[in-house]
């Protein structure tokens, strides 16, 4: 899977209340949640971005609540993938389980807002087309790659056979 898009940059510790405030949690509609994505950081965010754009953030992206509305909102807004120096753990597992592409790269300081990136999810290569630089993402563990390749957790379970479980 490859993505090309413009960079929107965020700081460290972006939390789930910022990604999608709790006042919108009474719906699960991707369009509606997408319209309010990152609203409390930048009220215009969902209007400014184009389909396929990429979020690039610092450490601990997605800390806070377990709400999958955060992933639904990011996908609903049209973001193709999220790159961060690190992800909070529930956000990370939700992204994997739901098939929102995420990549960890060690240092994002060389990527500026507005740069164009080309991301190859399979190889973990992140090409900065504006700066002509390449970054290598931390490879995902095999087990997680398997879930992603299946198209998310529930498809992985279906593939294994729903009746058959480790129990």
């Amino acid at each position, binding site marked *: 899977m490859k993505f090309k898009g413009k960079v929107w940059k965020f700081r460290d510790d972006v939390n789930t209340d910022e990604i999608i405030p709790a006042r919108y949690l009474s719906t699960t509609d991707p369009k509606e949640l997408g319209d309010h994505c990152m609203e409390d950081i930048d009220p215009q965010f969902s209007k400014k971005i184009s389909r396929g754009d990429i979020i690039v953030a610092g450490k601990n992206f997605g800390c806070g609540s377990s709400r999958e509305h955060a992933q639904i909102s990011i996908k609903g807004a049209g973001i193709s993938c999220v790159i961060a120096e690190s992800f909070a753990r529930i956000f990370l597992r939700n992204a994997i389980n739901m098939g929102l592409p995420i990549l960890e790269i060690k240092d994002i300081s060389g990527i500026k807002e507005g740069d164009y990136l080309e991301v190859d999810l399979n190889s973990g290569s992140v090409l900065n087309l504006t700066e002509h630089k390449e970054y290598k993402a931390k490879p995902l563990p095999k087990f997680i790659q398997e879930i992603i390749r299946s198209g998310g957790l*529930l498809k992985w379970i279906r593939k294994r056979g729903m009746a058959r479980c480790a129990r």
Partner: protein
Amino acid sequence: MAYTITEKILLAHTDKKSIAPGEFIYAKIDLALGNDITAPIAIQEFEAVGAKKVFDRRKIALVPDHFTPAKDKKSAEQAKILKNFSRKHKIVNYFEVGRMGVEHALLPEMGLVGPGDLIIGADSHTCTYGALGAFSTGIGSTDLAAGFITGCVWLKVPETIKFVYNGKLKAWVGGKDLILHTIGDIGVDGALYMAMEFQGEAIKALPMDDRFAMCNMAIEAGGKSGIIEPDEVTKKYIRSEGRNVKGVFYKSDVGAKYSKVIEYDVNKIELQVSAPHLPSNSWPVSKFRKINIDQSVIGSCTNGRISDFRIAARILKGKKVSSRVRLIIIPATQKIYSQAIKEGLADIFLKAGGVFSTPSCGPCLGGHLGILASGEKAIATTNRNFRGRMGHPDSEVYLSNPAVAAASAIKGRIAHPEEI
């Protein structure tokens, strides 16, 4: 092989012979929890994938606690999804409004979680039950749907950081202060992906409610779980008030491997307040005496238990809430609510000019029952002070224990209980 308590519990829930941090496991769960925010997505996914049966109707808990009693039509629709699913699949542990409580106070109280259990919950504060010596962690709605179907969860075996608390607590200092101080020390990602094991003489001396408050906030340091070795205090709790939980009492082996050991001398830990907008921004309360507040909230899955209200009542008895402050008191469960009335605590709060509400997560996540306007400041016994958490993006939340929240309500500014 020497194991930590966390490793022992995880191993016991797999078919493996051994286990090591970093390893991926597929583990059996003893309880899967969802609420009115997260369960609707899980149920939609459960149905979309064509699942027909839940793995065990006794091992699922559905608690509509966040936006309930339903705050608006949309929230009512969300809660209805839980109710219908519970009826259809004969879920034993569905808690309707009136029998409901804030999930992380309710499940231990009902004896649904105990030592040695492996619990997953689609709510980040599911780590609370580690206070009973369980492995308990927050997951997402998709994990919950998968749990409903298979009774299993995928996990990466975490490394553990050991926190040792030596000494004796100062007056008014409790579990909340220890955890705010700890998060302040290590940061909001200081325990990312890791288990936080709390040990030491100060922990041994901590009552159950304070242990819940500590483990509840492990997630605020990025932790996967918080855990305290079960002891006599635990045993007394799980076998009192009609609970009859057996549990398996695991202990960390001497020689178990920790990624880090951090020690604190609790004699030196002051009452803590975490300033906006991160729980890690914690300092002694004295730093904030000039901060005027508009609201004080005492409640939530962190500090909405009976001992929290006893502490608040000791301070509020015979006093009046400042004319410019709204004091909002929300017992976490129906039982706590009833107990607070029986002990005369509710009367003290009402006479002081406070609000005494039915259980709900309510204002903690900016849901309802006390949303802040722009520029307003609140002190709260809740667990997060992110920007906009309790309402307007330009409002501010300061986190504290119930004694500080009560004292601040009287003074109209952040205050030490000794000032009352």
